[in-house]
């Protein structure tokens, strides 16, 4: 998977105590027990530390979807 995916999973591990065994690309934040406030916190950290926006990601989004959003943000926009 991409760096963005790694960034997210590392953060989930460090901040939310999520073990690698709990995660696949298709795991949703919701299934990990994270809620919209947790996502808001992740968004702030990503903005502050990496200047990246995590727009459009919800608790029902999968980690893969979140990583794709970050990749899009990195490359400067949504692919057509």
């Amino acid at each position: 998977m991409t760096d963005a995916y790694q960034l997210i999973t590392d953060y989930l591990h460090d901040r939310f105590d999520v073990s690698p065994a709990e995660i696949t690309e298709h795991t949703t934040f919701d299934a990990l027990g994270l809620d919209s406030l947790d996502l808001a916190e992740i968004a702030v950290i990503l903005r502050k530390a990496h200047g990246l926006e995590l727009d459009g990601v919800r608790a029902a989004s999968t980690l893969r979807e979140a990583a794709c959003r970050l990749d899009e943000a990195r490359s400067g926009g949504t692919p057509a």
Partner: protein
Amino acid sequence: MYRPGRPRSPFRIPVGSGSGQVRFRSAPVGSGRHEEASLIVITGATGFLGSHLLPHLLATDEPVTALVRDDPRLALRRLARALAATPAGHEVLDALPSLVRLVRVDLSAPRLGLPGPVHHELAERTRQIWHCAALTAMTAEPSLLHHVNGEGTRRVLELADAAPRARLLHVSTAYVCGARQGLVHEDDLDDTAGFLNPYEASKHRAERLVRRWARSRGRAVTVFRPSVLVTDRPRPPRTPRHPLSVLGRGLRLLAEELEAADRAATVRLPGSPGSTANLVPVEYAARAMATIGAAPALATVPDGPVSTYHVVHLHDTPVPRVLEAMSHACPGLSIRLEPGRRNAGALDRKFAEATAGFHRYAACAVRFDRGRLGAATRGLSPPAPITPAYLRDALRA
């Protein structure tokens, strides 16, 4: 959800059958608990209140069945995390799979989404039904709130209907009184003052359903009306939040924004220095509710077969004390109370969003009578008044 051809008993289904239930492997403690004894059934066990209540229910030595919405294996993990964050939860963690049976339900579907025989068997053995599940986001979509809190309660009543031996213990909220001011008695239920948010309205409607059902069936029902449930214990990641922890998180996010914009700000809330909030430590509330649940239901009370308890703190907390703690959680933000209504500016709106509807409570001056609660929990020491230090810790959680 349920596959025909599987063993008929809902309690004899192998792990991972996909039937919506977990058949727990036997463990020394509690194995066999579920084979024939009567049951305590609880909805919302994975939530903030439910996870504090569960250890008390388990202490009765009766088997407990938790009705959950997730896949039971996932729900078990969530339950274990939630319990680990409670003071008494550690004692039951190791034996949890043998102590609690998880049954996956759809709270708003007929028969809770269970096949007829499964629903019937569950109902027949049930001695108590604790209905704790609810959508608690104050500003969620009214239709969603109605669906979960209204329809969900209706389906729980359907279970109670099928369970003639069962006593229903319904968790409502003290704030079913809506925007009322002054003293509210434990038997009062009127909507004339309107509601501060759609959550209150949905809980009001749910309590009405429960009362109407109790009267029409002549069934004993215990209604608990907690005020704002809080704790000052730290909150581990991925565990249920209480209202002050939601508020604290919103304030910290707002603080980040203010810091990024490098500015201080003042929010003005409609309210007065005399406004109060009733905050009650969840540890006390759960113990009080369990104490009442363990005693026989009151036979004759003024309101027919329904006995209602305001599960509230003896001492209200002054709103200015809460605001001071909030300012502490959000450096750069000063929060002022102003009498009367005013047009909200951009910052006021942002504050309202960040605090998930809290701002509407800054003008509250409601007091809750707790005579029946006091009489039913004489042996329990009431909690100490909520101090500024408690509030700061609760907001940090």
